[in-house]
C-alpha cells in the first residue's frame, strides 16, 4: 500500500506525532486504543521538547473530544451580523458550502484585491497554504499574523541585526540574563519546553536572572531580581544602561564594534554616511595610516571608533563628521540614570548597578573553545519581546535593548543573544548574507519565503492596500489599522472595500486588532465571509459559511510549528523535523483543509498557480513538484514533501513510525557570529532616507504624519497612556501578560485549561494591593475597568507584585460566543480596551500600543 494511503492504526499503540496546542509544535506520543486517544505524552526522541510537555499539550485530548466542535459545514440564515446576533446556523452539504464559496470568489475574480485572507495557522501547513491561496488569487490583503503586536519588531530587527527569525539568550553559557518585557523560558516563547529546562539548569548553575517588567509574574518569580518599570519606558531604561556602559564605565567590545558593525562608519552633520565618491560605499578613518577609506577597502586595517581628535582631523580634511559610535555615545549621554528615573521609576542607582553587572558579566575579550573552535565568549545578554514591542514607539522601545548586546559583542557567540534558525545545513544550506553598505541585509531562513526585515526597506508610495502597507516601508506586516482605514478611506485616496474574507480558525476578530467596535463594523461590512472552524468563536459568528476544521490530532502537516523552521532551540542543539499525521480518523464527513483549498482553487481556476507557489514554498522540484490538473490529497503532498526533503527512505510512513528526524548542528551553524560576512548596525542611517521618502509621499497625499520615529538613534518617546496619566485623566496603565498554560484562544474552551485558569485566578485582573486599598477595593471584588474605548466588569486579584501604577490583564479571554460555553463570560478581552488609530501604533512596525490608560472603580 502506498505510504500516503496507509490507514489509521486501530489497535492500542503509542503513535508519534506533533502537538498543535500552540505555535511551537512539540513532539508527542499519543496512546490510541480502539481508535480513541486515551493519553498524550512528550516524545523523548524529539530533541526539541525532549519528552517534556506543558499543561496545554496534556489537555489537548479535550480539544479533540470537545462536544461543541463543528463537524459539518454550516450556513447562516440570519443575514444580520453582530456579536450579539444568532447566525441561525443550518447544516449544509460540502457541495453547497463550496458552491457558495466558489461563486463568491468568482464574483470578485476580476478585482481580487477585495479579497482578504486571514491566514494565521502557525500550528501547521495552513499558514503557508492560505498565503499561497491568497497570492494565487491575486490579493495583497493577506494577514500573516494573528496579533497586532507580537513579532512586529523582533523579527524585522533580528533579521538585520542577528540574521535569524527571533532571538534567544544562550542559556547554555550565559551567566547574566536580563529579561525586559518578556517571560522568556519561564512562561512563553518558541521551543518553550526545551528552553524552560535550559533556564532551570542555567539558574541552578548560578546564572543571574534579572527581570524588568511592570508585573512581577512567572518570570519574576524565578528571578534573582525583579525590577518594576512603568510600561512604555523601556527605551529610557535601555538608553541609560548604554550611557553608563559607554560613557561612564567605558565598557564596550572595541574589536567587535570596529570590524563587525558600522560603528566606525563616518556620518556627516546631516546624519548621513560619508561616502566614497566613486563607489558610494560608506567611509571609515583608518588609524593605521590616517587615511579615509571605503568600508570594503582591502587595505583597511584599524578602523577608528571614537575620539575628538578624529573629528578634528576629519574637519581639517574638509569632511566634518564623526563615527557612528561617537554619535551613539554622544546621543545616549542625554539619558543619565537620574533623568530616566523620573520616566521609568527605576532608581538611578539600580540602573547604574545593572549596567555595571551586565558589563562585567560580558567578560569582553574572553574566549571559549567548543569542539576545537575558539570563539568569543560573552556570557551576558539582554532579551526582550512582546512587552517592549507593543507601544506607540515600539521599534525604539526595543532597538536600544538590542544595542546593549551589540556594544558588548554579545551577539551570536557563546553566552550571548542568539539568532534563531539563522543558519543551517539540513536539508540544504542557508545562512544570512550581507548586502547594502556592507551591512547584514538578508537573513537566513530554511524556507525560501521573504523574511521580514527593516533594512534597507521598501520605497514608500501611494497606497493601493487598504491597510496602508505602502506607508510603512520598514514594517513586515500591516493589518493593525485595517478596520479603521477600511471605513475611513478617503484621506488615502482609496475607493474600494474588502468584500470577502476567508479565514482560519484563529479568532482574528478578538485577537488581531484593538478596540472591538470598529472591528465588529469591519466584519459586518464584508459581503461574504467563509471561515474554517473547530468551534464557533466570535469571528465565526460573522461567517456566512463555516467549514469544519480538523484538530491537530487528525491533521496532515509537513510543517508542524515554529520549533522546526523558525524558533528552534539555539546553540549546540540538533536540527530536527517531524511531520503531523492523524492518530485518529477524521469524524465522518470532515475534510482536510488542504483538500478543501485544492478543490476551491481548482474550481476557481487557480490550482496551477496555487501549486506553483506551494512548490516554491516547500521547495518541491522535478518529480516531487505538484503538477497542475490533478487534485493531490493532503497525505500525498506531505509524503511527497518528506521524500523531497529527506530522501526516499524518509517518507510519511517513516515519520509515522519514527516521529522525528534529528541531525547534529556544527559550531558554524550554532554560533554564526564569527562566520558572518557582514556588519551589524549600531546606527540606522537608512531611517533618514525612509523619512525623506515618506515625507514626499505623504506631502503629495496631503497627509501630515509625525515621523519622529524615523531616526538613526533611538529616543524615548512617551506612549499616549503615559501622557494621559501625567495629565490626570486616568491614574493607571493596563498591560497584558502571558500564562504558560494559555496560548491565544486555543485552549480557552478546553475544560482542563479552564480549570487551571480558575484555580489560579487567571480570569482576574491584577492590581497593586496598596493602590487597591486606597480605592476601597478588596481581593476578589468585582469592579469597573474603563479605558478610553471600553468599559467592562472584572474581578480583581490583589498583589504586591505589580507596579503601583499598573493593571495586569492576562490571557486572551472575554469570550461572548455561545459556541464556547466554557469560556463564555470569563475574564477580560485586553485587546478590546485598546484605542486603535494612527496615534496608537508604532509608525515603523505598525505594532499596536499595548499599554492603555484605565480607571478601576467599584
Amino acid at each position: 500500500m502506498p505510504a500516503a494511503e496507509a490507514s489509521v492504526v486501530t489497535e492500542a499503540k503509542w503513535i508519534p506525532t506533533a502537538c498543535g496546542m500552540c505555535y511551537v509544535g512539540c513532539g508527542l506520543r499519543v496512546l490510541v486504543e480502539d481508535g480513541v486517544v486515551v493519553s498524550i505524552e512528550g516524545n523523548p526522541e524529539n530533541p526539541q521538547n525532549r519528552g517534556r510537555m506543558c499543561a496545554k499539550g496534556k489537555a489537548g485530548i479535550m480539544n479533540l473530544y470537545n462536544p461543541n466542535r463543528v463537524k459539518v459545514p454550516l450556513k447562516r440564515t440570519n443575514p444580520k451580523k453582530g456579536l450579539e446576533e444568532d447566525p441561525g446556523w443550518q447544516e449544509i452539504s460540502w457541495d453547497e458550502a463550496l458552491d457558495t464559496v466558489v461563486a463568491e470568489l468568482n464574483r470578485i475574480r476580476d478585482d481580487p484585491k477585495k479579497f482578504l485572507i486571514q491566514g494565521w495557522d502557525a500550528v501547521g501547513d495552513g499558514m503557508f497554504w492560505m498565503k499561497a491561496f491568497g497570492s494565487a488569487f491575486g490579493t495583497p490583503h493577506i494577514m500573516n499574523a494573528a496579533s497586532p503586536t507580537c513579532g512586529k519588531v523582533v523579527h524585522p530587527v533580528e533579521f538585520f541585526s542577528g540574521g535569524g527569525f527571533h532571538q534567544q539568550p544562550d542559556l547554555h553559557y550565559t551567566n547574566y540574563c536580563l529579561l525586559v518585557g518578556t517571560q522568556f523560558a519561564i512562561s512563553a516563547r518558541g521551543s518553550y519546553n526545551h528552553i524552560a529546562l535550559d533556564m532551570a539548569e542555567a539558574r541552578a548553575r548560578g546564572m543571574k536572572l534579572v527581570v524588568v517588567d511592570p508585573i512581577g509574574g512567572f518570570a519574576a518569580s524565578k528571578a534573582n531580581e525583579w525590577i518594576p518599570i512603568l510600561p512604555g519606558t523601556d527605551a529610557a531604561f535601555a538608553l541609560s544602561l548604554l550611557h553608563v556602559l559607554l560613557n561612564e564605565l567605558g565598557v564596550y567590545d572595541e574589536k567587535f564594534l570596529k570590524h563587525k558593525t558600522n560603528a566606525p562608519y563616518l556620518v556627516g552633520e546631516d546624519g548621513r554616511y560619508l561616502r566614497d565618491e566613486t563607489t558610494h560605499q560608506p567611509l571609515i578613518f583608518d588609524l593605521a595610516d590616517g587615511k579615509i577609506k571605503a568600508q570594503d577597502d582591502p587595505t583597511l586595517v584599524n578602523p577608528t571608533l571614537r575620539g575628538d581628535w578624529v573629528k578634528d582631523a576629519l574637519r581639517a580634511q574638509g569632511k566634518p563628521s564623526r563615527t557612528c559610535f561617537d554619535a551613539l555615545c554622544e546621543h545616549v549621554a542625554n539619558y543619565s540614570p537620574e533623568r530616566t528615573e523620573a520616566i521609568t521609576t527605576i532608581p538611578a542607582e539600580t540602573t547604574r548597578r545593572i549596567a555595571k553587572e551586565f558589563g562585567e558579566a560580558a567578560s569582553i575579550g574572553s574566549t571559549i573553545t567548543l569542539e576545537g573552535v575558539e570563539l568569543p565568549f560573552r556570557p551576558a545578554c539582554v532579551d526582550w519581546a512582546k512587552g517592549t514591542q507593543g507601544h506607540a514607539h515600539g521599534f525604539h522601545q526595543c532597538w536600544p535593548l538590542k544595542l546593549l548586546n551589540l556594544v558588548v559583542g554579545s551577539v551570536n557567540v557563546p553566552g550571548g543573544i542568539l539568532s534563531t534558525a539563522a543558519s543551517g545545513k539540513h536539508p540544504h544550506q542557508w545562512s544570512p548574507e550581507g548586502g547594502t553598505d556592507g551591512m547584514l541585509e538578508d537573513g537566513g531562513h530554511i524556507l525560501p519565503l521573504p523574511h521580514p526585515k527593516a533594512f534597507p526597506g521598501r520605497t514608500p508610495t501611494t497606497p493601493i492596500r487598504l491597510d496602508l502597507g505602502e506607508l510603512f516601508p520598514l514594517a513586515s506586516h500591516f493589518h493593525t489599522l485595517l478596520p479603521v482605514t477600511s471605513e475611513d478611506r478617503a484621506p488615502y485616496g482609496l475607493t474600494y472595500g474588502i468584500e470577502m474574507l476567508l479565514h482560519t480558525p484563529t479568532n482574528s476578530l478578538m485577537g488581531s486588532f484593538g478596540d472591538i467596535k470598529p472591528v465588529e463594523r469591519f466584519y459586518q461590512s464584508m459581503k461574504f465571509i467563509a471561515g474554517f472552524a473547530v468551534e464557533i468563536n466570535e469571528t465565526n459568528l460573522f461567517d456566512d459559511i463555516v467549514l469544519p476544521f480538523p484538530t491537530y490530532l487528525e491533521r496532515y502537516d509537513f510543517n508542524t510549528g515554529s520549533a522546526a523552521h523558525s524558533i528552534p532551540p539555539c546553540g549546540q542543539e540538533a536540527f530536527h523535523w517531524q511531520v503531523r499525521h492523524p492518530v485518529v480518523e477524521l469524524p465522518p464527513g470532515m475534510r482536510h483543509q488542504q483538500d478543501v483549498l485544492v478543490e476551491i482553487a481548482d474550481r476557481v481556476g487557480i490550482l496551477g498557480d496555487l501549486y506553483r507557489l506551494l512548490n516554491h514554498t516547500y521547495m518541491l522540484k522535478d518529480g516531487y513538484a505538484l503538477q497542475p490538473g490533478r487534485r493531490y490529497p493532503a497525505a500525498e503532498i506531505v509524503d511527497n514533501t518528506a521524500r523531497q526533503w529527506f530522501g526516499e527512505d524518509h517518507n510519511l510512513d517513516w515519520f509515522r513510525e519514527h516521529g522525528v528526524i534529528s541531525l547534529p548542528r556544527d559550531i558554524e551553524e550554532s554560533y554564526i557570529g564569527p562566520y558572518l560576512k557582514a556588519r551589524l548596525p549600531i546606527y540606522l542611517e537608512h531611517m533618514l532616507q525612509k523619512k525623506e521618502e515618506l515625507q514626499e509621499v505623504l506631502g503629495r497625499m496631503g497627509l501630515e504624519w509625525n515621523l519622529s520615529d524615523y531616526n538613526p538613534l533611538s529616543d524615548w518617546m512617551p506612549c499616549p497612556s503615559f501622557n494621559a496619566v501625567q495629565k490626570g485623566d486616568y491614574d493607571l496603565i493596563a498591560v497584558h501578560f502571558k500564562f504558560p498554560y494559555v496560548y491565544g484562544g486555543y485552549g480557552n474552551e478546553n475544560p482542563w485549561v479552564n480549570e487551571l485558569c480558575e484555580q489560579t485566578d487567571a480570569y482576574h485582573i491584577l492590581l497593586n494591593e496598596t493602590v487597591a486599598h486606597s480605592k476601597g477595593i478588596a481581593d476578589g471584588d468585582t469592579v469597573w475597568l474603563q479605558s478610553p474605548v471600553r468599559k467592562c466588569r472584572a474581578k480583581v486579584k490583589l498583589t504586591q507584585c505589580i507596579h503601583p501604577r499598573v493593571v495586569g490583564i492576562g490571557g486572551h479571554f472575554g469570550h461572548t460566543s455561545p459556541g464556547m460555553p466554557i469560556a463564555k463570560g470569563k475574564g477580560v478581552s485586553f485587546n478590546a480596551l485598546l484605542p486603535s488609530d494612527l496615534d496608537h501604533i508604532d509608525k515603523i512596525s505598525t505594532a499596536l500600543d499595548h499599554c492603555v490608560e484605565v480607571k478601576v472603580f467599584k
Partner: protein
Amino acid sequence: MPEEATIAVRVKFMGDLPALTGQRNIVVQLPEGSTAGDLLYSLSKTYGDPFRCRVFSGPATLHHYMVVFLDGKNMKELGGFAAKLGNSDVEVVMLPMFEGG
C-alpha cells in the same frame, strides 16, 4: 527593411501585483533574444513608478519578496535578469512576507 522578429511572452501577475496592474494576465511582445531583465524593464515602463518601486530594490535588483518564474522555473536558477526568453510563460509574484506572532 526586414521586420524585427518578436516573441510573445505571456505574463501572469500574482500576489500584490494584480491590484496594481489591474490585470492578472497580459501578453508582452518583445524582440527576439530578450531577457527576463528586458521583460521586467518593459513592465516598469508600462506600469510606471508604482510598479518599479514595489518590484525593484535597486538597479537590476529585485526586492527580496519578488519571485519570477520562467516556464515554471525560478528565474534565479536560470541566470537571473540575463535569462533568455522565448515565447515563454512568465509568472511575476510579489509574495507576502513571512511573519510571526
